[in-house]
């Protein structure tokens, strides 16, 4: 088994994390180049291949312990930056839920995840936070229910499904599984899944543990949105340094400078709060859910605004789908709208600050 080596990636120092970021970025630049990223994201074989490579770096094992969220967040950021839909979220969720299960089934399944052979799509169902996300339940050892809004389902080998009492693992080819791609702003498309008496392995878990998985999924999406927003922003800054209009660089106009200055403030604010939330969770700080909600409530509107302002700085040049910017626009908006988005995070903060509404 190769499980022991990858866990070495958890609890790194900040210098070690910088090195990890560098190596992930280099790998993605080489194997998931920007000029082919959009096309490759729709190609199941390409997704399977990049996931094996990333898992080969030990990234598929992150999240197995109560540490490692900082490192996982860094990977999500890099995936967002590279527009790479590698099934990292499914892996982290699997490690979080099954990392401590003693059964051979769990161990064998996680082994496949860590080797990059299993690609997991995560369905949060009743824990999604979106009231339209459906729900799933186990009855007589089989899974039933439907859920829209599942990412990575088309290229997944397994579905990890949160039920009302635990987590179910379903093989993608199992009987009673129906899947429908639902195209929209998100590329690759989200999918709707339905299960009808589908055979599944089920582990019982407390609602609190399941809810925490949803928090991590939200942080992961915000991390990807941050990476995408940051990358598009960097392109806008470079553009402002070379593009001339009215005989001067547009980056000399104060209207452009202040716009980009505000974007940098938003990006830094989102990164600092997301890192702080992951740190708090890794350090066992019981307030980590507050810090997570704060990061999500800020990142939602802030990163969207960065994405919009980035496009305004790029002008029509960045409006063509063949430019790199549109994919980042899609990623930022798609990831920030999911799982209840910023309104849910604000509601959670109000609960924590004012107490629940009575």
């Amino acid at each position, binding site marked *: 088994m190769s499980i022991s080596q990858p866990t070495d990636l958890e609890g790194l120092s900040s210098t070690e994390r910088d090195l990890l970021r560098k190596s992930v970025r280099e790998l993605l630049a080489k194997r998931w180049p920007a000029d082919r990223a959009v096309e490759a994201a729709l190609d199941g074989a390409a997704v399977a291949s990049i996931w094996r490579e990333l898992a080969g770096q030990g990234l598929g094992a992150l999240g197995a312990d109560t540490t490692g969220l900082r490192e996982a967040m860094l990977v999500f950021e890099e995936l967002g930056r590279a527009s790479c839909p590698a099934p990292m979220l499914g892996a982290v969720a699997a490690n979080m839920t099954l990392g401590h299960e003693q059964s051979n089934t769990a161990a064998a399944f996680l082994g496949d995840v860590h080797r990059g052979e299993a690609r997991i799509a995560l369905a949060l169902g009743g824990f999604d936070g979106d009231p339209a996300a459906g729900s799933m339940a186990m009855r007589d050892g089989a899974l039933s229910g439907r859920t829209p809004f599942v990412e990575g389902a088309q290229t997944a080998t397994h579905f990890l499904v949160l039920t009302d009492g635990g987590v179910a693992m379903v093989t993608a080819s199992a009987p009673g599984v129906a899947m429908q791609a639902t195209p929209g702003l998100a590329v690759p498309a989200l999918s709707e899944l339905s299960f009808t008496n589908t055979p599944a392995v089920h582990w019982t878990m407390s609602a609190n543990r399941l809810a925490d998985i949803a928090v991590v999924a939200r942080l992961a999406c915000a991390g990807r949105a941050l990476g995408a927003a940051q990358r598009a922003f960097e392109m806008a800054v470079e553009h402002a340094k070379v593009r001339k209009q009215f005989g001067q660089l547009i*980056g000399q106009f104060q209207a452009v*400078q202040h716009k980009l200055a505000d974007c940098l403030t938003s990006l830094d604010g989102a990164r600092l709060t997301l890192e702080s939330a992951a740190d708090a969770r890794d350090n066992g700080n019981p307030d980590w859910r507050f810090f997570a909600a704060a990061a999500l409530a800020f990142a939602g509107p802030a990163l969207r605004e960065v994405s919009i302002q980035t496009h305004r700085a790029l002008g029509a040049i960045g409006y063509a789908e063949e430019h790199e910017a549109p994919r980042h626009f899609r990623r930022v908006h798609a990831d920030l709208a999911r799982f209840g988005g910023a309104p849910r*995070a604000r*509601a959670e903060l*109000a609960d924590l*600050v004012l107490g629940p*509404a009575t």
Partner: protein
Amino acid sequence: MTTLPAHDMGPAADGFRKEIRAWLAKHWTPEKQAAHLRKPFNERGYDNEFSRLMGRDGWIGLGWPKHFGGQGRSPTEQIAFITEIANAGAPAHAHTTSETIVAQALFQHGAKEQQDEWLPAIKHGERLFALGYSEPEAGSDLAALRTRAVRDGDHWVVNGQKLWSTGADKADHMWLAVRTDPEAKKHAGISVLMVDLRTPGITIRPSMALYGKTFSTHFYDDVRVPAKNMVGAVNTGWKVITDALAAERVMIGGTRMAALERAFDHLTEYLKTAVVGGKALKNDPVIRDRIGALAADLEVARQFQMRNSRLVEQGRVPLHEAAMGKVFASELQERLGQAALDILGTAGLLSEDTPGAPVGGHMEQLLRHSIMGMIGGGTSEIQRNVIAQRGLDLPR
């Protein structure tokens, strides 16, 4: 009472907090607090006697290097101190400019004799400075200042006018930026003088600022300042000013942050129990949404402040990072004040002079005060220039 969960600042800062609280419990007594609150609003926050008491017991110069008589406390510990003082409502404005800006400049640019004479006095809560920077034609463009100093024997003779100096009517010394070479390029002809405000020829005319405290116009007519009171070499004042400003921004940020957290605490404590028109305010979904957004923004402001502290602790000078923290926190104060008026309605207009005003009548003052944060120490627009040009390297 704190609404936002505390960040773990490490055992050193947490232990230090206990020491500060014990001292405050002994010296910032309920009697003193009541007497302080009986003073007019304009005078609150300033208490020369309390500054001297703090100086006597070693609470001034916490962050100064030990070889200058300080305690060498980390920025994290200094922020813990600022927060505790703010939470207790203890008056520490009188010596703040001397402790942070003047002392900082003396460390870097002061002559040995100046350091030996002025630093101990500042540390003891004496020599309370105000800043003499802005002029009628020199606001954001500070280097355009024209107040003139001409050498005459062992003195500089100063003539000119300064504006908007907070606390000048309560201070005994002025940290005065003057032009010593009118022929040089504008940044190259500036020097800094420490001026005793009792010197003949000085007129100080306070006016009331929107937030309820004074700032002053001051006039200099043939004011003779001893040449030994110039800090740094003649015509190098621009560097003296900017070096001190960079380090000072972090500490000012700490003060603002503590005030913001306190204001948010007051507002949320009120909302937990307030019933208006038969409805509990805390159940209003619009209010809850607004409070949630503000809580997140406060956390972001705290993160900016902590990053600045980390940078200082690593021996780096936060520049665009400090600008970011200032823009964000000062504009957050404006949002918080506006949200409070929306939430409280007309009752939010009532000040602390109206008995029974909700949230102690503090919210309308918070809003009036927010303007100062967005202007003083470099406007939000200037800060955005710094972020764009220094943080993003955009062309000038």
